[in-house]
């Protein structure tokens, strides 16, 4: 962005008075601001260019996460939009204990869970397609198989593995973003990868005790899965 001075109330206040208050900012400097400062610039100063910068910084990752969780682009766009509206609305509730991006991904995961729960739409492939570079069909097959396999994972596993492998979050950050324990995250990721690898068998001898998910009641997940399936039926 080119340099341009901005100050809150620029239509009413002279630049000199804003300089006296020390509220002048150069638009070009927005790129260098932290995410939190951008949010503050918009929420308290009304600088809409800050929204622009923040969106460009994060919208593709949020959209990508939502797309892989929800499996269609329309829902993913809806969810992303909700996320960014919430970011600026709930800015006051952001606790600085966690990184801004973790908080952002937590909002995204929550929005996606809401969408998945009340999913009324079929997956919409037209919008789901990444119209990137048209591919050779043979090469498309590999990614088609893996994308389809991810789409078939249970929601929690899919979320965990996407946060890990597409967004590169640590287990601790994933635990924070999904509101679960680190042990649960570890187990979900390994189950997801095992399923994606075509069902890796456990070692034959000295097999450790059953993988456990601390905060999940037994039998909860199959129930959810059938519920999701039954909703799909006309």
């Amino acid at each position, binding site marked *: 962005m080119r340099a341009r001075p901005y100050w809150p109330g620029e239509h009413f206040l002279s630049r000199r008075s804003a300089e006296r208050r020390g509220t002048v900012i150069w638009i070009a400097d927005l790129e260098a601001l932290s995410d939190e400062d951008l949010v503050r610039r918009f929420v308290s100063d009304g600088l809409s260019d800050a929204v622009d910068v923040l969106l460009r910084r994060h919208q593709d990752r949020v959209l*990508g996460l939502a797309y892989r969780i929800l499996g269609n682009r329309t829902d993913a766009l809806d969810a992303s939009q909700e996320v960014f509206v919430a970011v600026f*609305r709930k800015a006051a509730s952001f606790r600085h204990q966690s990184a801004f991006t973790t908080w952002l991904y937590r909002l995204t995961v929550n929005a996606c869970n809401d969408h998945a729960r009340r999913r009324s739409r079929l997956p919409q492939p037209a919008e789901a397609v990444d119209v990137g570079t048209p591919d050779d069909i043979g090469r498309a097959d590999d990614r*088609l198989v893996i994308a389809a396999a991810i789409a078939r994972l249970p929601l929690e596993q899919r979320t965990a593995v996407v946060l890990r492998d597409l967004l590169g979050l640590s287990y601790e950050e994933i635990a924070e973003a999904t509101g679960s324990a680190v042990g649960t995250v570890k187990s979900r990721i*390994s189950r997801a990868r095992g399923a994606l*690898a075509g069902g890796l068998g456990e070692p034959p001898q000295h097999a450790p005790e059953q993988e456990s998910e601390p905060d999940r009641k037994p039998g909860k997940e199959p129930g959810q899965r059938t519920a999701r399936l039954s909703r799909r039926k006309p």
Partner: protein
Amino acid sequence: MTPHADTETLSAYLDGEIPPPERARLERHLASCAECSARRSALEGVIRSVRALPPVTSTEAEHLAMRRAVLEAAPGRAPFLPSRSRSRPELERELGRAPTRGPAWKLFAATAAVAAVLAGIVGVVVVRGAGPNATTKASAPAPSASPPGPALANDAEVRAYVQSRPEVRTFLGQPQAAAGAASPGAPAPAPAHVPSVFGQLTGPTPTAPTTRAAPNSDGALAPPSPPTLGSCARAAVLEGAALLDATAVTYQGTPAWVIASGAQSGSTGPLTRVVVDVRSQSTCTVLDQTTITP
């Protein structure tokens, strides 16, 4: 010999989430155990292929829609500030100019002048639109609403086409919303069932009108409009299966969609891969249908 490593440990190890002492023990074991290192390579392969998925990017229009949503949702916006929501090109063009801005009263004056002119125009339009001319206009079907005429004008021709080319599976596009928009001069034959090889849709589509070519209330098939890719792909999903992925490809030189469907659960179950030609104006043509067993 040290005990074998389970998948969870290997997976955490690959993510660097294993504490150092345990890590060293695991590495010693992996060096000596062929089975565990094979499972490690399998997991590495999975991680690689997930990372290799193409990134999802938003378009400029989507960015602007998101931006608008944020700005509109913001509480207590001053009336002037929404006028600052410009597209990026506009913004850059503006920022490229000298950053000068007149005093506030000039802006007020300019806004007032524009408002006055707009009010005048709207008033004229409203007054003129209230005449008898407007009512006749409103009842006539908008000519731009109907799609450009496809090669197959009515359902009889479509049926003949389908029957003449059994190897080409065709699928009609969305029916017109207005029944009256169907070609007025054409006769209305009995509702014909165009055979579909794809079975029923896998679920309700509450937001969109049905994508299957359904007979209109007067029994005539609506003229096929250009199919949306969504309708093509939905049609390509077999009954009981879920649509799992779709992507743009070139198939033997023609632009096409590759659509994967299969059972929702069971990551290793077979997939149906359908290649749909997207160039056609009025039909979805399936170029290829294969079952893939991952």
